[in-house]
């Protein structure tokens, strides 16, 4: 167990470095952007640029003329204290307040669809790799690949138009109905699920093929291993071999992909959120970028990065749990 602890700590060390790299990038990119946020806000609201007002505003936004390195230190310090600063576009709201609810919705929607898509895709991949001669294997991969070849937002828009607007099977947007009160109550939960259904379905539809193919390919490699031949020779039942011997091993490399995908999905939900007016953080990010709201932008980028890192670490733990070879 010492070995696995060692492994986990080493991974953790790596994630710290990755987090630091992301934070640093996060610090410098906005500062390289042209334009002064205070001036931009004034321009947006057609105010007059009087130096006193600008300076007063810059001060309240925390934009100082301190040397970059000094700013960098205080930036790192405040992040460690959980202070992400004050949003410029939503002034004077602290960034953490803005992000928190958005992050939850994104994690709910993206996590929900990722888990379904991963489980379903892996299951389908297992089955089609096992039943190689079946119709499923010759039709499913190309069909899903073709569906997945469409630009995601394109499919989502068409789906929203057909199923949301024309047929009215699904709501046109938002995370829950206007007639329910957020909280732990059945109407709200049902409403949230109902509102997540169409966005989730579109996300699942485009990502399913990828999971299926990757599982299928690993399964095929696994099916060529000696322990599968040996299991066959043992006269074990098909199902047992497929699940306990083949899929159980083949899923391990896919876990790593799952961790990576979580990052993609969290940030990739951006398009979903825009198309389905879903109150997640992807759209918030786009808005922050457009409004040059550095603190919000940084906060979002940071939370996404941290979520991805945390997810990857959990995947590491899961792999440790599922793959005895990683714990010595």
């Amino acid at each position, binding site marked *: 167990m010492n070995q696995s602890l060692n492994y986990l700590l080493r991974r953790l060390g790596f994630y710290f470095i990755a987090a630091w790299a992301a934070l640093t990038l996060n610090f410098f990119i906005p500062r390289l952007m042209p334009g002064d946020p205070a001036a931009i*806000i004034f321009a947006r609201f057609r105010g007059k640029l009087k130096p006193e007002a600008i300076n007063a505003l810059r001060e309240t936004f925390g934009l100082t003329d301190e040397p970059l390195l000094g700013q960098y230190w205080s930036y790192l310090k405040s992040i460690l204290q959980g202070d992400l600063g004050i949003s410029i576009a939503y002034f*004077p*709201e602290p960034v953490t307040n803005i992000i928190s609810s958005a992050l939850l919705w994104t994690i709910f929607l993206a996590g929900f669809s990722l888990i379904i898509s991963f489980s379903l895709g892996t299951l389908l991949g297992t089955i089609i790799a096992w039943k190689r001669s079946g119709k499923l294997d010759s039709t499913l991969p190309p069909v899903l690949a073709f569906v997945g070849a469409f630009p995601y937002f394109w499919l989502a828009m068409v789906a929203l138009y057909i199923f949301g607007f024309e047929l009215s099977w699904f709501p046109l947007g938002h995370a829950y109905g206007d007639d329910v009160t957020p909280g732990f109550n059945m109407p709200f939960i049902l409403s949230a699920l109902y509102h997540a259904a169409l966005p989730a379905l579109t996300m699942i539809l485009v990502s399913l093929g990828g999971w299926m193919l990757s599982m299928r390919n690993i399964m095929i490699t696994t099916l060529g291993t000696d322990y599968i031949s040996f299991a066959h020779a043992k006269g074990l039942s098909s199902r047992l071999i497929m699940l306990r011997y083949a899929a159980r091993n083949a899923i391990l490399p896919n876990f790593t992909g799952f961790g990576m995908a979580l990052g993609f999905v969290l940030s990739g939900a951006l398009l979903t959120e825009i198309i389905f007016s879903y109150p997640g953080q992807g759209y918030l990010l786009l808005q922050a970028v457009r409004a040059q709201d550095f603190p919000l932008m940084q906060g979002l980028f940071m939370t996404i990065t941290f979520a991805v890192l945390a997810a990857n670490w959990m995947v590491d733990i899961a792999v440790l749990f599922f793959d005895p070879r990683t714990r010595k």
Partner: protein
Amino acid sequence: MVAFGLIVFNGCKNKENQNARRGLIIFQESQISWVRNFNPLSPAGAARWPTSAGIYEPLFIYNSMSGEYVPWLALDYKWDKGNKVLEMLIRDGVKWSDGEPFSAEDVAFTFNVKRKHRALDTRDSWGYLKEVIAMSDTIVKFEFKRIYVPGFDALATQSIVAKHIWDKIDDPVKYSNPNPVGTGPYTEIIRFDSQLWELGKNPNYWQKGKPHINKLIFPTYPSNEQVTLALLSGNLDWAGAFIPAVDRVFVSKDTEHHKYWFPLTGHTTFLHTNTQDPILSDVRVRKAISYAIDRELVVKVGMYNYTEPAHVSGVSGPMSKWHSPYLNQREDWTVYDPVKANMLLNDAGFNKDETGLRHTQDGHLLEFDIIIVSGWSDWIRSAQVVSQNLKNVGIKAKVKTYDFGAWISRMQKGEFELAIGWAEKGTTPYALYRGMMSSEYLQPIGETADVNWHRFSVASADSLFREYERTSDQNEITEIIYKLQHLFIEHAPSVPLFAEPSWAECNTKYFKNFPSAENPYATLSPNYAPENLFVLVNVQNR
């Protein structure tokens, strides 16, 4: 999957939002999640619509349709001591929503908060104000440092906050005012979720019997496309969104109830010409560019024919009353006349080569970049048409898009050649012409200038501006504006493209008495505060 099935079934029943009709559902600002901020003084403008005109109210409201200031919290005003003192008579009997009486003290307090916190003084009122004093419960005296009559607008349209609440606030700049106390028709926050909030009636509103509707409902919509879908599905009653092909997309789906009104605002969108550019400094080139542009096509392609080509004077629509009677004697420089454009360019010494492109005397290609904000699709489309038009007269113009931040920074610093952009707006054309031709805001290239991005000034205009600022006499004002118009046409400091419309749609299925072309008591667009207060108090349940 079973859950999905249930949900789908459940969904079929609930096509339209039945509960919604207890209130008016409004879209004004693109958002994906609401942040609770009701600070009417907020410098970043981050406060929720309709904080500044709805929860809080100004002293006067300028009605762009009638071109008049309508008394609101104030009843009247008068200039005194050679226009150096402004006195306002404050309405009696107004109460704050918490029941406290409203008085001139609150007005003076509001201005003095802005004086103390300069970050709040976004319109630079204290650049000309010396003192604001409540003379009695109903009289406020504004004392000016210098005579500056146009300053009236900023003072009259300021939203007034309650002294008894705000004098306890340490930092009004950062205060988010979660539970506002105002004088407006709607003041009570009934519900505030990240994707929806509801605003209820002010129990103590001073206009008896108003407002008519119980509450306002604000759902989040991130894009115009979403707004359109919501409008079509009946989930929005009033919106200020741009909808392309609005007759086909929106009206045709329910001609009885789906209404829109895109009236002209009187202002103009310009193709700014940087007059510090050695070539563009030549008025012939600027006018040639203007003649080369087929504004009808620009309006059709870029603006879906929602507006009209720019007037020679740069003002139109409700501002047309300012048009000089002598305009027909002036040059009609905003018509499409490529022949004249070519003539002017030949005249200026830019000759065409065999490919039809023009060159400068020293052999450089006559080419410009038109810079636009990326994502501002109507302008990009317009610029594309302009670019093609200019090509026809031998000028190569490339459309370049920049992020808003980069774009505004280039505009302010004068680092552009051609750009589509707005110009100064005011209640009279004075603001436009001052932005166009005054040396007051002129900055060298590289320095930030908030107006006069094209960097043009003319001395004769400067003296007219000084005259204007000192007078409150209507006849004098009109005369000055005529002269400014003539100067504008003569010098062509920047090229007007098309009149600026406002966007507004409404659904009259549940509500009536929205403004319209037939009943233009105000503009319909919710985007124009405080004018939208007229709508808020006049709309009724059907």
